[in-house]
């Protein structure tokens, strides 16, 4: 781990009377996997939305790799190397999985060339190779609107990875994934991200996943970070157990 990659200071945002962010301070270190846990409505997605330019905070600062990104459009932030995946997979539903991936690959370079085919060999190969890493080769030619939730989630993340981000923000990457497949999928995902040296922040409800894959855990509560530390430390903290994990005593199969 070397240096701070994403730095948020004093982020504030309220919707009506609800404080979705009430002074968020967080440094994401280069190379780490940081898990965000906390009850629904604590402002976890809001943090991702603010970090990627989709929502504008009412106060505070965000910088990425030492550069201020507050106020930039999602487009500009993506180009700086901050990728994201979505709680509700954002796929192009009239396209096949391969075409979705190829569009993401093409968007890194030369999207705006009207005469180059999307499935030119170079882009097609890179897209296929990407799908292979994610284990999606078998459904490469399936239309995105015909996939099951787990496959949609993976394809969604694959599209974000295709952009070769330095930092990837994932909003509930395992929600909707069948419990039996979950660990295998996360294992695969972690391998892909480690190989590509991507720093990752992920919102997660499954404490087993958090315990196994996170380097650090941040606990969100009512728009604030209630605790931050190693999984061992956080997951055994009695307050955290009561406030966050307590509502999920069912173990690893908690609802999203």
């Amino acid at each position, binding site marked *: 781990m070397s240096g701070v990659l994403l730095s948020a200071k004093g982020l504030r945002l309220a919707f009506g009377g609800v404080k979705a962010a009430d002074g968020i301070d967080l440094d994401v270190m280069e190379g780490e996997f940081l898990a965000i846990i906390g009850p629904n409505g604590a402002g976890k997605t809001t943090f991702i939305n603010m970090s990627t330019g989709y929502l504008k905070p009412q106060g505070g600062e965000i910088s990425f790799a030492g550069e201020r990104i507050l106020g930039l459009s*999602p487009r500009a932030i993506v180009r700086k190397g901050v990728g994201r995946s979505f709680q509700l997979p*954002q796929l192009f539903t009239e396209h096949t999985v391969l075409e979705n991936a190829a569009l993401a690959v093409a968007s*890194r370079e030369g999207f705006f060339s*009207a005469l180059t085919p999307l*499935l030119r060999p170079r882009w097609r190969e890179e897209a296929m190779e990407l799908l292979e890493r994610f284990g999606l080769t078998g459904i490469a030619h399936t239309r995105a609107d015909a996939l099951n939730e787990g496959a949609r989630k993976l394809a969604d993340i694959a599209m974000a990875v295709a*952009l070769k981000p330095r930092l990837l923000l994932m909003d509930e990457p395992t929600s909707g994934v069948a419990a039996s497949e979950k660990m295998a999928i996360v294992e695969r995902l972690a391998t892909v991200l480690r190989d590509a040296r991507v720093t990752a922040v992920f919102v997660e409800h499954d404490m087993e996943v958090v315990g196994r894959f996170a380097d650090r855990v941040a606990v969100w509560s009512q728009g604030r970070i209630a605790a931050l530390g190693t999984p061992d430390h956080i997951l055994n903290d009695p307050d955290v157990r009561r406030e966050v994990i307590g509502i999920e005593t069912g173990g690893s199969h908690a609802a999203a």
Partner: protein
Amino acid sequence: MIAKHEAVLAALLVAAVLAAAAVSPWLIFILTIATAKGIAVLGILLLLRAGQVSFGHALFVAFSAYTVAFLAPVLNDVALLLPLGALAAMALGLVVGAFVVRYREIFFGMLNLALSMVFYSLLEKLYTITHGTDGIRVSLPRFFGMALERHAYEWAVLVTALVLAVACAVFARIYLASPMGQGLSAIKTREARLEFMGVSARLVLLSAYVISALMAGMAGAIIAMTSRHVTPHLGYWTASGELVFIAILGGAGGVIGPFLGAIAFELVRVYAAASFADAWQLILGTTLLLVIMFARGGLWGLVLKLTGRRA
């Protein structure tokens, strides 16, 4: 597969048009207009790919046609008038497009309609410049430096229109296969994702809009040089509605649809419009309703069905 299929059909269609024109010369006029409209409809089709419909593209047809009419007295050659008219429409498309691509669906469609109606009103009211509803006559232009007699000139314009039509259809095919073209359908299904890929959805749509304006401009120039009389009616909402009508009738599937649709449309119109002058829009509207509700694929879908392929 489909591409090859399409190429054969396109060749057949061009051959059929030429044969029909040779057998009955009075068809030359109708077929030229139909080919021109087909080119404009191809542009509408690009926008439909993005889930957007313009109810005002006659604006670009009329703008180009009037550009031709104004320039004809000084630059009386098809080789100059055609590109200048088309480029003028393209430039206007860039300006209007920069504004309307900020909007989707309802606003996109209606803003296009509103702007085209403003231009129509100006054509009608600024009598000193446009001669109002009387319109402007265009004298017989030269064709690449040659002064042709009328019949030869009409053939020359028809062939020019066909060449442009094929070129535009080929271009549309290539464009639609590119990331920009595929990005159009991405705008329809998940525009936010495009932005999170670092791609400007507005630029993607603007590219299609400018191309569609250019295509409408080509159509306008050909129409002006064929009918050799431009009137504000070229830019009226009914003219825009016709383009949308043909696009739906021709089917949103392939690049041949617009031309099949345009030819069918113009032929029917010649026979029907005279007898049903005041009910023409009623007939079009009813057909449009029926096609939308019962035959989504349009004519092209029918062709695919008859040749055993799925739309």
